[in-house]
């Protein structure tokens, strides 16, 4: 039972960066732009936070003070948002204003973003001539990873036998995450609400479905594309920030973020362009990513699940992509219109084109 709850917790923590990434990408794609730069943007979000946090820590501020901690969070957060927003702006400038091919621009953005991330992650000390052996932002990370205090006390109580173990586990599973994890869910829910229940959402969806119609209805198509892409990039960037500050405890390792960016893109398809579904999807994907650590040896009714070998883990890591493919195939065969990508996804809009 403990194992099960710890699995859920790990799955959620794995899922949060994906959720940020896919919420951001959904918002972008709803405006008709397939931003394949998302993996790069998430790297940028991460490195932005690292750079901000690194230099703040270098000032030698006393992290014992609450306002210093708050400040650390704000600085890292701001840097992260600025970095990813700049990437979004670059993508918009190239694809919306200059009408460059979206796939090519996105891929270039990914190469660039991953490069920037790894470069600064690996060379920050050298560049800044700082006197530390590695980029390890334990203090800043500590601020980000802070979770609600009462979870620990419930835990202690359970250990002391004052309350049932299951309650402590439940409590931990629901409340033990850092604020960025909760924020990801809130953002996804807000995005779901805005997309489906507000005028802004309606307009945005119209832009992605048929920009010419939106244009004829007096909507400023380019503005919507810019805003949604930049906003989407910023949200995706937070995914990188969460990964580095909470999941990786502030330790940068080259390519440590892995293919989570692409998983986010996959999750967009898997969740049928709905941020609400993406919440559940992100936890499923997160679970897939780590399930190999948890299964094996247990008895499921009368079947004993064999212990997974190292290689089988790799196959398990494949499952999110396979599931996404199946969803993609299924909806295209079923031709359920709501589940299809926005009709103008990947195509630039040029009003005078006939």
């Amino acid at each position, binding site marked *: 039972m403990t194992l099960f709850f710890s699995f859920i917790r790990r799955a959620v923590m794995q899922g949060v960066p994906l959720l940020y990434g896919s919420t951001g990408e959904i918002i972008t794609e709803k405006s008709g732009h397939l931003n394949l730069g998302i993996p790069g943007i998430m790297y940028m979000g991460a490195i932005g936070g690292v750079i901000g946090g690194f230099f703040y820590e270098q000032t030698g501020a006393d992290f014992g003070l609450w306002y210093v901690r708050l400040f650390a969070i704000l600085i890292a957060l701001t840097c992260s948002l600025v970095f990813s927003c700049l990437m979004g702006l670059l993508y918009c400038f190239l694809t919306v204003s200059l009408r460059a091919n979206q796939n090519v621009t996105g891929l270039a953005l990914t190469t660039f973003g991953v490069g920037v991330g790894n470069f600064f992650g690996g060379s920050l000390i050298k560049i800044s001539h700082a006197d530390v052996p590695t980029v390890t932002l334990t203090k800043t990370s500590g601020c980000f990873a802070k979770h609600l205090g009462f979870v620990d006390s419930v835990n202690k109580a359970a250990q002391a036998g004052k309350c049932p173990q299951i309650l402590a586990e439940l409590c931990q599973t629901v409340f033990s995450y850092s604020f960025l994890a909760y924020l990801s869910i809130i953002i996804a829910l807000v995005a779901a609400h805005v997309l489906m*229940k*507000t*005028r802004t959402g*309606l*307009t945005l*969806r*119209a832009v992605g*479905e*048929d920009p*010419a*119609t*939106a244009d*004829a*209805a*007096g*909507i400023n198509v380019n503005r919507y594309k810019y805003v949604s892409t930049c906003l989407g990039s910023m949200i995706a960037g937070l995914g990188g920030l969460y990964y580095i500050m909470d999941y990786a405890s502030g330790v940068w390792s080259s390519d440590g973020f892995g293919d989570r960016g692409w998983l986010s893109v996959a999750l967009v398809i898997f969740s049928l362009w709905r941020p609400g579904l993406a919440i559940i999807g992100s936890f499923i994907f997160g679970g897939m990513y780590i399930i190999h650590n948890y299964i094996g040896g247990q008895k499921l009714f009368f079947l004993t699940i064999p212990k997974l070998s190292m290689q089988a883990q790799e196959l398990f890591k494949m499952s999110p992509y396979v599931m996404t493919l199946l969803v993609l195939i299924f909806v295209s065969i079923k031709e359920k*219109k*709501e589940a*299809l990508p926005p*009709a103008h996804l990947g195509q630039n809009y040029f009003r005078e084109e006939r």
Partner: protein
Amino acid sequence: MSEQTASSATAATPNVSGSPVPAIELRNITKTFGEVIANQGINLSVYRGEILSILGENGSGKTTLMNMISGIYFPDSGHIFIDGEEVLIRSPKDAFRYKIGMIHQHFKLIDVFTATENIVLGLNDGRYDLPAYEERVREICGRYGFVLDPKKKIYDMSVSEKQTVEIIKVLYRGADILILDEPTAVLTPQETDRLFDVLRRMRDDGKAIIIITHKLHEVMALSDKVAVLCKGRYIGTVVTKETNEAKLTEMMVGEKVDLNIHRSEPKNPVPRLIVKGLNCKNEDGIAVLKNISFTAQSGEILGIAGIAGSGQRELLESIAGLQRLESGEITYMNPSTEKEENLRNKSPRQIRELGVRLSFVPEDRLGMGLVGNMGIIDNMMLRSYESGRGFFLNRTAPASLADQIISDLQVVTPNAKTPVRRLSGGNVQKVLVGREIASAPTVLMVAYPVRGLDINSSFTIYRLLNEQKEKGVSIIFVGEDLDVLIELCDRILVLSSGSISGIVDPRVTPEGMTLKEQIGLLMTKKVDETAADTAADSSEKPAVADSAAVQTEITPASENGGKEAPNDGNQES
């Protein structure tokens, strides 16, 4: 009709609703596109509580005129008055502000949205409250008698429902001047009747309504006044009650223009292509070809007339192997082998492999007949690239063909490799027709070959067609200019909403009316099943019909007109 009558008609226009100033008035509007005059000196006025029909053939400038009112184009000169005050309409937004709503032929709707979502898209009126919007949509539906579920998705809708959404969209925005661009073109007769009921209710509600159409019986049934355009010029406005179909036709087709196109007598015509009982449905499952039967003969030009969208494209594409047929037979009589080949539901390649030399100049020149981004040489290869053994393309033959076409037809192009997209319309057409003729066809189908072309290019095309005819090619010519059809063709088959409404011999003038008027009437005639059969039978008759044959053509037509009096004829609605 002379200019004098026209102006007097305008002056005598009664004010149906009694309001002192017209809701919208156009004075002396002129619009040109390059050299082409789309509208010249147009005067129009519509009062509130009035339905004005704008009548005119294809290309008479109706849509251009309406686009100027709705802010899509801006007139070169002239004045627009709304409620007596001069206004400038520079953009669709301006038009909205003056409460002008236009319902285009192409629906601008988003498939995955509901009706209501489409209706309120782009509006900004406070809180976004879908249920309230739906309520308002229902209210509008109730007021004018629309039948529409506000929650239905567009992709689940029929064409007429989509049109309803478009109309409600403009009503929702408070439009009180409504312009409908050929609203009935896509509707069934029942849907048309329902639409007209709605429009009448709107008129009674005090809206000014302009409806563009070229269907005479609809004009008679619906409108209070009719304004007629012909070739971009304003002919006049008449009160519907004081006119009849014959008079309107006369105004619409204008006087016969002598083009002096050379026409030779067909030399020993034999059946080349026999079409029997063709039925075809479009993607929406609506029948676009109904029981089409005719015979195209060698050495003659068979003209096909009809208002746009009467099934001309589908007919040619069926023969070319690009449409799936519901039923019917297409038989080709091969002149070299004397064999009959069945072309039904064969792909263009299969048709070619049967040895059928069928050439087709489609209406969509750069989208279908040619590849815009390729040069003339590569476009020549479209037909011939497969010829020759082996894996490689042979560009020598196409290159010499390209050079030949460039010099023979005087194609103006920097060189044979310039993308054809960059050539002018006339030169594009010369390239296309040149290529199709170069394959020495036995059947040549051309769709609107002179559309957008200047006089010289047009005559080059006519000359080419006549040359082919004299070589014994069977030519099927889909055209829109009746003058051209009458002077060029040996027989004219008239299509009306997917059925054959008659086959006319252009050498013979019918009694009591001009040939143009006869064709004009046939074009808008409603054909029921029996009438279609009659037409089918008559098509079996020899090509050079005597006047008696034509008479039998007209008789069912006039009978028919009589039968369908409620929608037709001189009765007021």
